């Protein structure tokens, strides 16, 4: 269905315009802040708007099935590249998630001291790129956003980071860049193959799905896609950029990285890599299982050894992403819907934890576990939220992560019991480091500084927002899961 208002384009360009305006207003920090927040809120409203429209509408000519919003404009005709955007249930959820996380990120960076306008402007630009990625139905466009995301992120880590920001940001960039360039080659190869077969040279994803790829070549092409996505995911053993980048990035940067950028990789696997190469993906699935399970356990184990909270959470984050990979690898409706749900939940929970670590860091000026202790006695409200998010991350039922992990595991168990068993083992390891984190921060003797500021109104609003979502998705994830149903049926029945 194409509506009169080009919502999809607006979703991409609104943040970009916002970024420009905020950049223009960067001299006045407060104006920039409020403007950024306004744009964030507007984007969120816009992202939620499709919830109100009829999503079951009859298919129209030229619109691929399953997409209830669709836009198609010519762009680079020489290569058959079109500015094609489409929204189905999966993208809708991702778009809303992106808008939500960005708002959290904007509020969380309310107190950035240096060059705040620029910072917020980059955040908005990043949001625009991520939204574009989730909406694009043209592989070239997808790739463009995939890479364009890197630039704001590069600056966010490098300019406002702590520790060794330059090292981290360049490492992050190079890692992802190597993968994506190989993916670019694969995309071109696929494009050429499709063109040679059908005579129509196009990057349109729905069309490319009908390409017949020889098995051997398919393995290589899928391998390139997989490599690229696995780096961004990140999957074991391609992860070493991640702890550094997460650690050294500023709060909002970590938030965007952990909550959104890693999701783009999972989204790419679900939307592009698996449907494009059904045979090759089946052949390489054991590999994905192995790295996913290995990742879940290994990262959980390594997380236990960390002293730096942020690094611990970084490993925790990537450990949880293993469930997403596992669900995708199983490629059954239940497992993939679980993986998608896990993407949402991971974004919320891990994001919340990173925000909280940011708050603790801001107060105690340290992220070392040994500098904390007895926080519960000092700032009970903060501690309360910290506990909730940690428990969500540990998979306590009633909170969000449990639901998705259960769905993934049940789904995977059906297909690959051994992999699921490994992941179950991982859930014990997860609890071990989580309670360690909780214990060393919240419990024990009160450490210096004895007085910490309690949660402010601004922080509180963010935390409440996140906690409500955590609980809501834990007890009533139905609406979100419903959104995944129709697109997954289309994707998996191909």
């Amino acid at each position, binding site marked *: 269905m194409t509506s009169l208002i080009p919502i999809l384009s607006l979703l991409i360009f609104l943040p970009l315009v916002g970024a420009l305006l905020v950049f223009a207003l960067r001299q006045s920090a407060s104006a920039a802040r409020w403007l950024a927040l306004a744009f964030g809120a507007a984007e969120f409203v816009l992202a939620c708007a499709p919830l109100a429209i009829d999503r079951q509408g009859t298919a129209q000519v030229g619109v691929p099935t399953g997409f209830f919003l669709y836009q198609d404009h010519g*762009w680079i005709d020489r290569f058959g590249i079109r500015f094609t955007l489409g929204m189905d249930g999966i993208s809708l959820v991702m778009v809303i998630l992106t808008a939500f996380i960005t708002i959290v990120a904007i509020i969380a960076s309310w107190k950035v001291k240096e060059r705040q306008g620029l910072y917020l402007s980059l955040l908005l630009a990043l949001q625009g790129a991520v939204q574009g990625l989730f909406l694009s139905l043209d592989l070239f466009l997808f790739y*463009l956003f995939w890479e364009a995301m890197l630039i704001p992120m590069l600056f966010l880590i490098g300019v406002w980071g702590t520790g060794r920001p*330059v090292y981290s*940001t360049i490492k992050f960039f190079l890692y992802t860049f190597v993968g994506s360039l190989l993916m670019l080659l694969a995309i071109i*190869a696929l494009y050429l193959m499709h063109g040679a077969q059908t005579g129509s040279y196009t990057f349109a994803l729905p069309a490319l799905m009908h390409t017949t790829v020889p098995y051997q070549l398919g393995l290589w092409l899928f391998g390139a896609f997989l490599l690229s996505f696995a780096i961004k995911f990140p999957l074991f053993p391609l992860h070493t950029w991640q702890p550094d980048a997460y650690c050294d990035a500023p709060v909002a940067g970590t938030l965007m990285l952990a909550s959104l950028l890693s999701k783009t990789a999972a989204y790419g696997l679900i939307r592009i890599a698996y449907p494009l190469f059904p045979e090759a993906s089946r052949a390489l699935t054991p590999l994905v299982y192995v790295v996913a399970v290995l990742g879940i356990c290994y990262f959980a184990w390594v997380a236990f050894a960390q002293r730096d909270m942020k690094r611990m959470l970084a490993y925790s984050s990537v450990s949880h992403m293993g469930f997403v990979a596992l669900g995708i690898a199983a490629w059954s409706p239940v497992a993939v819907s679980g993986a998608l749900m896990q993407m949402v939940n991971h974004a919320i929970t891990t994001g919340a934890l990173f925000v909280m670590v940011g708050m603790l860091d801001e107060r105690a000026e340290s992220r070392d576990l040994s500098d904390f202790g007895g926080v519960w006695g000092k700032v009970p409200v903060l501690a309360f939220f910290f506990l909730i998010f940690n428990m969500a991350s540990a998979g306590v039922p009633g909170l969000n992560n449990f639901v998705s992990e259960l769905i993934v595991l049940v789904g995977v168990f059906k297909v690959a019991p051994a992999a699921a068993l490994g992941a179950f083992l991982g859930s014990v390891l997860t609890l071990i480091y989580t309670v360690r984190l909780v214990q060393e921060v919240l419990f024990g003797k009160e450490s210096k500084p004895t007085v910490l500021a309690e949660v402010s109104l601004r922080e509180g609003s963010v935390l409440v927002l996140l906690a409500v979502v955590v609980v809501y998705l834990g007890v009533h994830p139905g609406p979100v899961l419903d959104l995944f149903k129709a697109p997954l049926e289309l994707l998996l029945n191909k």
Partner: protein
Amino acid sequence: MTLTELYCLLPIVITGCAALFVLLCGPLLLSSSLTAIGVTASAAAGIWAAFTAPAPIQCIPGLAFTPLAQLLIPLFSFAAALTLLLSHGYNERRILKGEEYPATVLFALFAMCVLPCATNMLILFLALESVSFAFYILVSMDLNRAESGEAGLKYLLMGAVAAAFTAFGFALIFTGSGTLALSAALARPENRAIISAGWGVLILGMAFKLSLVPAHLWTPDVYQGAPSPVAAFLSTSSKVAAAALLLILLGHFPPMAELRAPLAALSVLSMVLGNLAALRQTNIKRMLAYSSVAHMGYLALALLTGSRDGYAAVLLYGAIYTAMNLAAFGAISSLSFEEEREQITDFTGIGFTAPVRGGVLALAMISLAGIPPTAGFIGKFFIFYSALKGGLIALAIVGILSAAASAYFYLRVVAQLYMHRSEAPAPKPVGFAEGLALCAASACILIIGVYPGPLLEMVETALR
């Protein structure tokens, strides 16, 4: 010479006359008006060429206003105009007086305008050598630095040897085919060996102009020694001119199987070596020189395909590379004052103390690294697209991996600009002419990056 002929070849006439005029009246005029004359002449030539329909036949013997010329002349004019704009402030700061400088730039432009119009090998050769010749002079023009003269001599020595090779190549081809006219000089099967020998020597000469490995070694020295605006001009237009020459020759001769392996070797070596050698450079101009080696390797990769797509990719990439390097060297030159600012560490924090120039430099670096949404990405995409289409899969993979490694040294500059706590002393504000040039270059990078359609069409037209 009839009026029609003049009409067609007006760009050549304008630039040639402008060069002479500047040379003659130079002592009487202010340096700013010399720059103005130069820029106006370049712009006029470019605009004229861009909006004139290509003539199908030779206007005068040896010259024809071809579609290729219609694309390349505006490109060269653009580069020359930007170079003049950039040089104005730079030369004033460095006390490089005299009419010789703008006149030589215009002479180079004149030769460049002749090059794509040439219809026989003699004109082609002379135009190419004139371009080089102008650059020998321009490189050594900075009398304040010994490096400048040194670079000039090295360039000249290497260039003369390479010219001898090129000429020898032409000589062998002529001996084999019996004509200098491009359109008729088809390889005769019985003389294939001589012609292929000629091509072998010729390609090496061209490898020098394009600075492909192993004929690349002069590049870092010359870029470092040359005044920055000259380096900008040299790294862009002279390369594009050489690429255009190869394109013209390859376009008229059927692709020869013998040449694939040497060209492939040159291309791979350049991509890998250029990108690797640039990794640890501390001098930004040398770094850009090695990067230039690598980029010419990409160009050679596209040339190697021997297909229309490949040639289109060469032209597109040439245009994009022109914009990128003009921006990069332009930013460097506008940030240089009494001393040439050439160590990468000299740029610490410049992104904040001189936002426009720092931003342009960062944009150029990002574009050179080939990250969307900049023009560099489109160029790289087209190159690798044509390579894959031409079946050069292994080369494409090597190229793309070396391109990935290249991101490191480009980002190092960006990191230096924005991501270090300490700050280099703030530079003086940017002058109008330089600002204009920088904005023009970066606008091109962004516009082509987002909407390359028109340029692609122009490239296609140029090859028709």
